[in-house]
């Protein structure tokens, strides 16, 4: 999977979990989205691990607050 594919997948996961539809803007970040609360953060992490078959570390989980950061971390893990 290339970088664009990963970013699209991350957008899809976040869009579905937060009920925003799959066309989420890649500049999307947690700080600007009240819907991205701690409960949804858990679901996003679980869904991303499942979707990309990766395993995040504890620090990763705390730092994953934007599509850009998440995409970069998944690319590193793949």
């Amino acid at each position, binding site marked *: 999977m290339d970088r664009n594919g990963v970013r699209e997948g991350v957008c899809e996961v976040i869009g*579905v979990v937060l*009920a925003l539809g799959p066309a989420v803007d890649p500049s999307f970040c947690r700080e600007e989205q009240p819907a991205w609360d*701690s*409960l949804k953060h*858990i*679901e996003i992490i679980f869904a991303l691990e*499942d979707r990309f078959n990766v395993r995040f570390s*504890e620090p990763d989980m705390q730092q994953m607050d934007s599509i850009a950061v998440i995409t970069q971390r998944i690319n590193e893990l793949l």
Partner: protein
Amino acid sequence: MEIGSQRSMPLSMSRPFSPAAEASGLDPRLQRMEWLPALFAEQPRRWELIKLPTQRSSHAVHVRVHRNHGFESTASAVVPYLALRDWQPEFSYSDYDDSLTFRIEAPAELDIVWLDYCRYVARTPAPQFAAWLRQRVLTLRQLTDTPIILVNWPEQSVYANSVREAFENHAVPGLLLGSLEPVRARLGDRLLDERMVAVSGTRLSDAASILIARELGCRWIPAAIAPRLKAVALDLDDTLVAGVLGEDGPEGVVLTPGHRALQEYLFELRQSGLFLALVSRNEESDVQRLLSLRDDFPLKWEHFSARQIHWGSKAESLEAVAGALRIGMDAMLYVDDNLGELAKVANAHRDLCLAHANTDAFLTRRVLEHFPGLWSRGDGGADIVRVGDLEANTERDKILAQSTDRAGYLRSLQVPLVFQLNPCAHLGRIHELSQKTNQFNLALKRFTEAEIERRLQSPGCKVVTVRLADRLSDSGIIGALFAREEAEAIVVEELCISCRALGRELEDIMVAKALETACPQRPGKPLLFEQAAGPRNDPARQWLRRVAGEVWDPSASRVGVPLSFMNPRPECSLLDIKIERTNG
């Protein structure tokens, strides 16, 4: 909102609403057929569950969660499972509280006790911990009458076993102890995921959270809040077998390993007291031949308590099945591989549960293993009796047709009737009668186990059970009467008789003798029966109308019955009547 900080915060776990699905006008039950492969995969996956376009279901179920670790990652996965029965959970949470102080701030239909035992392990030996936990659950029992689910943490088996023994030896009314041992056995080292504590507040892994959600949503919550379903009706072609009988013939249809596993599980369901019914578009003689010819089939012709095999509509066939089994349509699950048939049936029967039979019959088996409302907690003695009792009804009808008078009919049946006052040992069965009877349920009070337990212990209340048998079958406990002696009257606050016991015209004797059992020293006090109108309890109300006579008022909440109702009846001499007043 941070995990662990909220208290009693109602929280909807509904997933993205699907406007397209709603706009399509498709019955939600049919939309959910597409979910079955994701929900009932051997290990369901979070991403697959999240993608399901769950709509808000129409029946909210308010659940209080008393906890010392995070429940949210499990809660979100419970939603699509409960949606199969159109239930929408609304969870409210306690703080993380190792001491279980139980703040009851909002009404609810259910309480869940959700504890990770790890913080007690270093400080308290297992037996003391189990005794303490039982005391805390008893405290919760005093605070609320709702059902309680205690999820038994499986990590340290000595603690889990001690807890199980503590609650088995001294049952708490209305408590369901959910065992996580099967989840631990399946996942092994993958049960826990210590990374997750910081974000989810629990050590449970994602895989464990999902499997526990399936247990909660498919088994424990339905068993706690609703009566068990009573029947599974099945299509034949490409559902119970691979192939089409009319085209492939009895030797040609295939019993794949999956279909064998499915039939074996259906047989187990029958053994546990569920009716099986066959609804098939075929020639009846062909199906009879198939089921007698194929020795390899676990299911035989006689295992189906009702059969509708013809070329007519399946919607009508299912109505006939419900009539033959004397159950409501809402107590039945229909399984068919043909989505078109399911759509027609759904259109005709809004309350019927539906499941799509997959070409992978192992998946169909898993659907049945988990379909909300099919699971039994293993105390279904009355369910087991029901299957044999219904079969005896055909024979009773023959005897009635051949009898020249009612006395001869009763004599030939050899009926013993046993009345027991406040039989604590039958709390579970009394609860079932209160929850499950529909046709002969006079006041529709639907008591919880805790409410019944309180009446059993209260000196002012009398609970009488009626046990019925005849030479054809033992129907077991088929009736319960709840009475209260007030200063000016004896009040029957609830009267429930199983529909299996109707038709023998013994209702008057049963009620009169139950009242005699409850209040043997009746000083000529008036008799008042409480009543409520429901969608299906007309038989009970018509009975009251008959015995009350002209004073019956359909809108009154209490109806007087003449004292002559209690006069001795000649028919009693034809029955073997026993009255037991010892608590047991």
